[in-house]
């Protein structure tokens, strides 16, 4: 680790009064206080970076070791055991996570992409565009548990779906509230990157605004939009707080989208605090499956992002 004052070489003396200049040789002297301090700070920042990476390594190692050794076919095909019993699997929770995340994506992706298109292509600097943009930032900062409280008050307590209270549908809606700001933001930023010449070119050959946006602008920004979508879905799949009192939990296979449903994240929460070993082990196994899914989605998103041609 070197500093800029260590360039060797010397300033040849000139005719001027040399007492104005510091005549020390311009070579690196590790004993100088400034260089010692420099090294010390480099060491500290390196230590901080190590400390920052450490938790990820530790969490991954434990999830891989504790969860990986329980991996078997049974895990994917069986129901969780009753308290005090051995064995069992998390098949219903895996199916539930897929189902609830799918509902959330089906709501949040169309709405979010359309919202991003509006903000980027139509809103300009209009007051309504600014309201939507500000509202989106605020919604992104709303704690995830609040989205659960909201859906509980709106859907679960009022029993709007055929008199059903807790349901997979309610859980999906709660997750979609969390996904929406991410999808809007990434769509908006992706569309902003599309050069304006592309739009002008499309208008120039006689395309309408609708055709320009759907056939030219959105395809050009497909990579950032899909990257954002993948990240939003991955994040939603791991969310727990909005599901605890909307989708609830179920010890059985999913029974339609208007009944309570098990999800992996709620299963981890419920089983982690149970005093039974079989349940604790299933929580680790579910963590393994969830973390693998989410890491794969993140690496997919990074790969997609690398494809960008804009």
């Amino acid at each position, binding site marked *: 680790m070197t500093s800029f004052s260590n360039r060797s070489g010397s300033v040849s003396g000139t005719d001027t009064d040399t007492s104005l200049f510091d005549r020390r040789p311009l070579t690196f002297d590790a004993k100088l206080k400034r260089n010692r301090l420099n090294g010390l700070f480099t060491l500290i920042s390196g230590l901080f970076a190590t400390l*920052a*990476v450490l938790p990820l390594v530790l969490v991954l190692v434990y999830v891989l070791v504790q969860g990986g050794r329980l991996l078997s076919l049974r895990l994917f095909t069986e129901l969780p055991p009753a308290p005090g019993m051995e064995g069992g699997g998390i098949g219903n929770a895996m199916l539930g996570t897929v189902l609830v995340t799918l509902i959330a994506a089906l709501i949040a992706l169309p709405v979010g992409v359309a919202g991003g298109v509006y903000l980027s292509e139509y*809103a300009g600097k209009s007051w309504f565009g600014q309201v939507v943009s500000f509202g989106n930032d*605020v919604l992104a*900062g709303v704690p995830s548990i609040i989205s659960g409280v909201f859906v509980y008050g709106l859907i679960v307590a009022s029993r709007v779906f055929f008199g059903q209270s807790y349901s997979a549908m309610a859980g999906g809606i709660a997750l979609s*509230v969390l996904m929406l700001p991410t999808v809007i933001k990434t769509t908006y930023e992706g569309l902003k990157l599309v050069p304006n010449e592309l739009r002008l070119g499309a208008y120039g050959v006689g395309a309408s605004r*609708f055709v320009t946006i759907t056939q030219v602008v959105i395809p050009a920004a497909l990579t950032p939009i899909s990257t954002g979508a993948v990240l939003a879905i991955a994040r939603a799949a791991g969310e*727990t707080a909005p599901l605890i009192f909307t989708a609830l939990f179920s010890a059985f296979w999913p029974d339609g989208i208007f009944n309570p449903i098990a999800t992996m994240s709620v299963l981890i929460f419920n089983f982690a605090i149970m005093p039974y070993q079989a349940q604790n082990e299933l929580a680790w196994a579910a963590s393994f499956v969830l973390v693998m899914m989410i890491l794969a989605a993140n690496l997919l998103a990074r790969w997609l992002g690398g494809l960008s041609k804009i």
Partner: protein
Amino acid sequence: MSSDHGLSTDALFTRRRRPSSEKLLDLGFRQLTLALASIVAIVLLAILVTVFQGSREAMASFGLRFVTTSAWDPVNNQYGALVAIYGTLVTSILSLAIAVPLGVGTAIFITEDLIPTRLRDLIGLMVELLAAIPSVVLGLWAIFVMEPAIRPALELLHKLLGWTPFFSTTPQGPGMAPAILILVVMVLPIITAIARDALNQVPIELRQGAYGVGTTRWGAIFAVILPAAISSIIGGVMLALGRAMGETMAVTMIIGNSLNFDLSLLAPGNTIASMLANQFGEADGIQVSALMYAALILMLLTFTVNVLAQWVVRRLSLKY
């Protein structure tokens, strides 16, 4: 359709009138995206109205006393959220006090070419992946791995500093201190990512100028580069504060969910978010309303912090 030149039957150009169906489609698409975009505003309003309506009953019966009393007694229908509010503020602020130096230090380490690019990118990727791990998995890890591992250190802390009210209880598993540590793990990626972007955006001329007048690398970082990036970093820190206040699962699993007020960081505590996660499913009557009231307070706290964050970034950012 007529040729502008009137020369030949093969017109080079044709004047095209937009058919009304095309105009209708254009207008319809615009209105559709407008309607879908306004869903954001509607959802936000609906959240506010739902939570506010739900908390009216508790507001009427407890008023501001709710914020200053610590009784949480479903049997006698007395509710005060002091324990949860104290826990929310203490855990989020103390976790930031630890995470800010760590995060900014890491960001400097991976932006100021102290190490090879490969290694920098690897550390950056790992911190990003840490952000992707679900909070419930971190909670599970905190219960079974982190808390038993740090307990000797907490016991030592109790032995040395037990005479202060903040470390006066013996650590017995779940508590505020492990919750603070798991929050550090959760907000670290946010701070690192934002600080890294801010440092990368400092113009190269500023660095060159600083090195040109003969400072060391860390002289340049402290006197020139950090001050130039400070507004974005503060904005990021405040965003992280908002996230820490609302963080639910990992904290709920490790904080102990105590309803009694205790100044000690080694004792079990509670936060608004973990109280909601624990009690909302089984509550009824005025308890639901009291929980909604607590949720409203949490929303106001995070809203204030987030708006301040945006203001700081816009107001304090240096123009080059």
